[in-house]
């Protein structure tokens, strides 16, 4: 039961990374793939009117985390205090930049909000990447299950660690690159004209850069947490995840070279699912690893709500999920197809 809920919570976070990750990605490469004001509106339109729907996955994840793993929520969110507020402010700036940029047809106004848009998306991709690195590396949890972290200490990965060290910084860079590649693949699918061509070309180089980074991160993870690969060996879900990564990477490469944009985008999503699922399964059952004393780590079993509470949540959650999927299918159908520079603004920004 607890393991299943761990799966659900991971799923919600992964869904968020896939959906908002493409917005982060598109945002980071905004200036590179879109040069004229019209092209820049095209990128914003491709992210489309659904950005708040994507963010709901984060809200749903947060709420579910409080309900299912309240002790983890309390410990982790208070411990990551400042980093989380930077994320919240980044999300505020990003949302506002999407919404208000198109309101006034003036190149200074739009140029300013384009800058906020690019900056906020960079900040978010890097912070979420660093957060992922922190989850794998661990945090200085004490025996009461609490921690409070500085932004950085001595950049080492053991003992009294900070938010940033050589490992979490490299995961942050990796996250920024792979999400940029994901965003470029999305823009290739969703746009036409010069934005499409530039996204396709730039996406290709980004994916090539992802390959050595994946290898580097794998080696680094093995150095930071040597026990994780061993645990992963015995976990069939990790094998499944790795299998998904290999297959989708192959299909992604062929999709890009054959200009099959839909295939490339689907595989880009699957690749991220594979990577994140492998990571989530490998660290299970520890949700927060202690860099001070491994036995102080918080496991899912220690932080979960009571069985009856979990059972009750298992009744309404699937209903909510089915409803959310129905809205998504209905609404995605309406927004299917490419966004061009010339279209009227019905359905676009």
């Amino acid at each position, binding site marked *: 039961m607890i393991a299943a809920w761990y799966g659900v919570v991971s799923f919600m976070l992964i869904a968020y990374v896939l959906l908002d990750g493409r917005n982060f990605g598109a945002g980071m490469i905004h200036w590179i793939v879109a040069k004229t004001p019209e092209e820049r509106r095209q990128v914003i339109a491709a992210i*489309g*009117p*659904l950005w*708040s*729907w994507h*963010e*709901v996955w*984060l*809200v*749903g994840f*947060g*709420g579910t*985390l*409080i*309900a*299912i*793993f*309240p*002790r983890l*929520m*309390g410990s982790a*969110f*208070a*411990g*990551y*205090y*400042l980093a*989380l*507020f930077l994320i*919240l*402010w980044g*999300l*505020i700036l990003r949302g*506002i930049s999407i*919404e*208000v940029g198109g*309101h006034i047809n003036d190149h200074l106004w739009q140029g300013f909000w384009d800058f906020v848009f690019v900056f906020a998306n960079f900040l978010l991709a890097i912070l979420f990447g660093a957060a992922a690195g922190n989850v794998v590396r661990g945090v200085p949890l004490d025996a009461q299950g609490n*921690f*409070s972290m500085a932004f950085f200490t001595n950049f080492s990965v053991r003992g009294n660690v900070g938010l940033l060290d050589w490992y979490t910084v490299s995961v942050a860079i990796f996250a920024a690159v792979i999400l940029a590649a994901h965003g470029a693949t999305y823009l290739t699918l969703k746009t036409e004209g010069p934005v499409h061509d530039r996204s396709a070309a730039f996406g290709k180089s980004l994916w090539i850069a992802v390959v050595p980074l994946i290898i580097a991160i794998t080696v680094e993870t093995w150095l930071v947490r040597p026990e994780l690969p061993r645990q992963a060996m015995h976990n069939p879900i990790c094998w499944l995840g790795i299998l998904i990564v290999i297959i989708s990477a192959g299909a992604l490469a062929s999709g890009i070279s054959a200009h099959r944009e839909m295939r490339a985008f689907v595989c880009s999503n699957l690749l991220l699912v594979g990577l994140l699922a492998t990571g989530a399964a490998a660290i299970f059952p520890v949700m927060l690893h202690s860099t001070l004393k491994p036995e102080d780590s918080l496991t899912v079993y220690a932080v979960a*709500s*009571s069985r*009856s*509470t979990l059972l*009750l*949540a298992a*009744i*309404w*959650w699937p209903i*909510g*999920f089915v*409803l959310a999927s129905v*809205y*998504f299918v209905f609404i995605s159908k*309406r*927004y299917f197809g490419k966004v061009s520079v010339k279209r*009227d*603004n*019905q*359905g*676009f920004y």
Partner: protein
Amino acid sequence: MNSNIYDPAFWSRLQFGFTLTYHYLFPQLTMGLAWFLVYWKWRALRTGDEKYNQAVRFWTKIFGLNFAVGVVTGIPMEFQFGTNWAEFSKYAGGVIGQTLAMEGMFAFFLESAFIGALIWGEKRLGPRYHFMAALAVALGSWLSGYFILVTNAFMQHPVGYRIEENGLLGIASMSAYLLNPWAWIQYAHNQMAALVTGSFVVAAVGAFYALRRVCPTQSPLYLKAGTLVGLIASFLVAFPTGDQQAKMVGNHQPVTLAAMEGRFVGGPLAGVALIGQPNIAAKRLDNPIEVPGALSFLAYGTFQSYVHGLDEYPEDTWPDNIELLYYSFHLMITLGTIFILLMGLATFQNWRGRLQSSNWLLWILMLAFPFPYIANTLGWMTAELGRQPWLIYGLFRTRDGYSKVVSNGDTIFTLIGFTGLYFVLGLLFLYLVGREIHHGPGEGAVVKAEEVPQ
């Protein structure tokens, strides 16, 4: 409020209170305005009259801006449960997390999927689906309100829970938790208050155009709908919802009711103080003008009913800022009474066909729109200050709920950050909404004064 600046709970309360009060300025208009959009869209479908579509197009732009600020200021709310109220989240997360998650799964997904369709999808969707989109957004916003009110109602009047073996709270009965009687009454009261905000804003824009002698078809539409809905909603806020709310506080939180009324000594034939200043040091209400027996009647049904006083309860269960609580409550009631009178008069004048020519009344309507925001805020201050010193009434104290590992410096830093960011956000919002109102619903610039029908 314990105003010791070295007390971490103080800063976390201030930050939560500030970010929540600011956030709620936006959803109250979203929830109030949503049904105007649904109504006009429905009228447009039924009559085919283009003026209703024009109204929807105009108000949707304002709705969209308002919605966007509501979304971005809403996300920090949920996260602060973990960042600033970690001990509370650990203790009660198994209960309150359920409705916070449900809000996302059932309400926000619905709302956010269709908001884009409502704002930009008129041509793509066609009139019927566009109407459905407006309806979906309205339902989603009201549903999200319900889940949040259930969460708050649990903190006011905990039901349906049990204390697990590890000492933390879990759900014993989901139906008891979701159907908390406190939630129903507070929800009804709160939603009517949101409608008051919506109708005052609609009426204010109508009055603005009427005074400028522009938009001759749109402005009467806004004035008529705004004043009529405003009258009905203002009345319902007071009776029965506000009345029931006060009775509920009297039954379940008698010490809160005593503090709200500045009633230091218990007894029968309790009066309602129209004016008066609570004097905590001397434990009495200074310079009161009272309606004798009114409080006994309102709270318990007869003039002779016994109403408890603060003296009957230990001081450590008194709300910790009685002055602020007392004034919030009394100001809210005063404003609510004025709303009924103002909207009653405006509806009457409109019915006589005189509203368009009563410049003085139009001026008042135009300038009155901030006051429902103030009244809503005062209402929530009454509810939340009245709940003190408890975080969950009778179960868990506020001073036990904040995050022990977060330093005051951290919280002050983020509070200052929010203050700056929200100030800029507010300016931006007012500028862009002002621009839309100035631009008007499409007939603003072209209409000259002499074309206005008298």
